[in-house]
């Protein structure tokens, strides 16, 4: 089965991809070497596939065309207007950012989170983390296309771009913490923040902060018609609902790269068709959800390279209307959580290749992936206790409630139905399921006025710690769709933003997570990890270091080469 079976909507709506392109294995090289038993939560069969495909040791060859059948089609190519993965599956190749995460061939395992300079050579902050200074690379040129015609990239471009982002549009949220930007000289940018934020560089490294030019915006009035940047590829063709073609930028500042001449993205909304495209070598990269799917592909493509992919978080969980009865009672929440057999879901629906579920990437507070036992008492499957607790809370005979969702992928429907059955059998809670179309679901969910339950998500492309804690859990944050309203959480997440010391950050983060689990503020659900599958001749495309090659992590394609 394929993740992108959103039927007709796959092209735009695959939020799952949208959310999970951060791939990460917590095991990393250390665990493998130490053989210390992969501390995995689910009773997983040891996957025969490696967690990491190291960079090839052979000298890279230049040339060739990389093709990918994609479920996403960009709604617009204006980065101010959308965060859709349809755009960012290639925007990071046409444009650049100041900072980026490390590429697979710069690290020895997927477990490395280091930031590297893209357009910025170095950066530092004042001791209070309120003023950040970036030193830009010199000699970087915009694409040699009108109206820029290859002029040099300078600090004023950064100021213009960030201010434009902050003013209006989809990225304004990210840039609103900026108070002011100075450009003391051509290659220095100094950013003043409204409040201290040690995690600011992570925000700058997000894929949505690609830099666009003043000239195009001023000439066209918007960025919908032309996309010009400083990246390794130029946008050669964009035919809506058909294909996107990127061609190598001959003036790219990283001499010698990119290796591949052209990257073609084919809009292919149907999952079965994408699979067929991979099988017939029309597509070089594909993401698959489960071990059995991988087996199916390998029957026809025995030489395909498979990377077992691991997530550091799950984007989906049961969201409860916890600002009103019955779910405002923590005992009810705990009872519901204990009545759901998560392990079984991970073992069956995800064939053992899934994670039990947590919202904050564990890498921020611990080294090893948490086991189910470590997630606290309310995460264990204890139906008898759950029933007692629910009775204590005043519902000995259960109650009626509703659950609405949008089927991002088929396993979600399986999970929803299993949850329905668990709650009915164990607590006599009758859940009426409503499967909605995307627009209706999304609108209702983010309006945050719904009653009952929803299969909710934490949105956003970001994997930064700030995003995952403050933005999603603070009671006054507009992204708090789970309707968390806990003073302890508010206090801790605010404190986290002011904690520069790494070790201390981990401690605070752990406290946040513990509180979240204890109060069952967000009921995370199992989620699978999936597999990246490549044609045998593709090199250096491994998904790792927080980004998946085919989605938001597309900038990694500048390092890919084809061994043909």
């Amino acid at each position, binding site marked *: 089965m394929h993740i992108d079976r959103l039927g007709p909507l796959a*092209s735009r709506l695959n939020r799952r991809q949208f959310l999970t392109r951060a791939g990460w294995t917590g095991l990393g090289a250390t665990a493998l070497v130490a053989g210390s038993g992969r501390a995995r939560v689910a009773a997983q069969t040891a996957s025969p596939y490696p967690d990491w495909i190291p960079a090839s040791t052979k000298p890279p060859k230049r040339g060739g065309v990389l093709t990918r059948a994609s479920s996403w089609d960009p*709604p*617009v190519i204006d980065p101010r207007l959308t965060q859709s993965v349809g755009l960012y599956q290639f925007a990071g190749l046409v444009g650049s950012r100041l900072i980026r995460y490390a590429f697979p061939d710069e690290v020895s395992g997927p477990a490395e989170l280091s930031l590297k300079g893209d357009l910025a050579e170095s950066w530092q902050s004042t001791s209070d983390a309120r003023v950040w200074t970036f030193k830009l690379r010199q000699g970087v040129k915009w694409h040699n296309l009108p109206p820029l015609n290859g002029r040099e990239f300078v600090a004023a471009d950064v100021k213009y771009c960030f201010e434009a982002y902050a003013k209006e549009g989809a990225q304004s949220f990210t840039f609103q913490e900026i108070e002011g930007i100075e450009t003391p000289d051509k290659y220095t940018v100094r950013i003043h923040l409204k409040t201290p934020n040690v995690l600011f560089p992570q925000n700058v490294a997000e894929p949505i902060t690609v830099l666009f030019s003043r000239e195009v915006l001023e000439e066209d009035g918007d960025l919908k018609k032309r996309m010009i940047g400083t990246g390794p590829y130029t946008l050669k063709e964009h035919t809506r609902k058909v294909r996107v073609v990127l061609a190598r930028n001959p003036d790219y500042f990283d001499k010698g790269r990119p290796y591949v001449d052209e990257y073609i993205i084919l809009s292919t909304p*149907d999952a079965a068709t994408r699979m067929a495209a991979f099988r017939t070598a029309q597509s070089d990269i594909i993401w698959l959800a489960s071990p059995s799917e991988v087996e199916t592909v390998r029957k026809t493509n025995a030489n395909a390279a498979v990377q077992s992919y691991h997530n550091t978080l799950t984007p989906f969980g049961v969201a409860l209307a916890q600002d009103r009865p019955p779910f405002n009672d923590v005992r009810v929440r705990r009872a519901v959580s204990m009545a759901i057999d998560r392990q079984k879901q991970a073992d069956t629906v995800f064939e053992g290749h899934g994670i039990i579920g947590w919202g904050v990437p564990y890498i921020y507070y611990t080294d090893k992936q948490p086991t189910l036992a470590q997630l606290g008492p309310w995460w264990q499957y204890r139906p008898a206790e759950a029933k007692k607790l629910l009775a204590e809370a005043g519902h000995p005979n259960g109650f009626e409630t509703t659950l609405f969702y949008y089927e991002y992928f088929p396993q979600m429907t399986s999970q929803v139905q299993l949850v329905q059955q668990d709650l009915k059998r164990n607590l006599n809670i009758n859940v009426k399921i409503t499967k909605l179309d995307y627009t209706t679901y999304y609108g209702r969910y983010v309006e945050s006025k719904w009653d009952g339950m929803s299969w909710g998500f934490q949105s956003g492309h970001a994997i930064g710690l700030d995003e995952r804690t403050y933005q999603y859990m603070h009671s006054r944050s507009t992204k708090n769709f789970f309707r968390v309203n806990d003073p302890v959480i508010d206090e801790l997440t605010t404190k986290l933003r002011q904690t520069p010391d790494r070790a201390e950050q981990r401690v605070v983060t752990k406290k946040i997570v513990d509180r979240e689990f204890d109060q069952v503020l967000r009921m995370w659900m199992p989620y699978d990890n999936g597999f990246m599958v490549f044609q045998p001749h593709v090199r250096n495309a491994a998904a790792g270091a927080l980004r998946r090659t085919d989605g938001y992590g597309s900038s990694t394609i500048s390092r890919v080469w084809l061994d043909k």
Partner: protein
Amino acid sequence: MLAVPVLLLSSLIVFGLMRVMPGDALTALMGESGNIGERELAKIRHDLRLDLPYYQQYLLWLWQMVSLRPGDSIFTGEPISVSLAKALPVTLELAALAMVLGLVIAVPIGVLSATRQDTPSDYVGRVVAVSGLSLPDFWLGTLVITFAAIWFHWIPAIGYVSFWESPVRNLQQFLLPAAVLGYRLAAATMRMTRSTVLEVLREDYVRTAWAKGLEGRIVVYKHALKNALIPVVTIVGGQLGVLLAGTFVVETIFALPGMGRLTVEAILFRDYPVVQTNVMLVAGTLVALNLFVDLTYAWLDPRIRYQ
């Protein structure tokens, strides 16, 4: 002519339905944008004139239709005339090929089935035809593309190219989807052909011709077929309408950027102008088609005069 009030009515119905649907285009936009504040939403809503009272929005859109300037898509900002100009040829080509394939198979089999009524070949023909009507096209399409890849290691090249760019590649891309679409058309047409031929074969003038001793085949082809074709033409006209409207599934599976995808995706995103314009286009085409069929009807059978 009477066509105008009909079209107006259709447009009203579609307009009304779209507006009553929960969620709006901005919700979908928001989803893709991750996060837009209330202020920005209000501004976008105002820019797109979605905050006007409904009847004003309707009249505005009507004026755009009449002056042939359909405006822009809410979701992508692309001018609708541009997207239509790109999508229409795809669907037309698909429908045309499907019709050709379908008719080429259906009419001979229908005639055969009728002339050999109640023999095994009739039964087989009818069962095969009805099975064509009972397989959902999304299922057939998925089956075809999955097993083409597995058994033949070949699927049509993904990434639509127009006929003028590369005729070979284009036909290659359209062959399978047209076959899937055409299969259903063939089933319906075959049954209709069979039943009208059956009826005609019982007509007095046909039996007279037989009685006169003319060779069976000549009787059938000269006298019966021409008259049998009248209802078939009606059916084909109707089927063309169904085809035009029903290409969505096949377009999705075979990655063709046609009208079906454009319209259905627009509905799901609540992209009002696109839906309204597309539906009006199809409705208008259907009405025009009906007219054309009526005229052909009159031409084929001199006994009927267009009133």
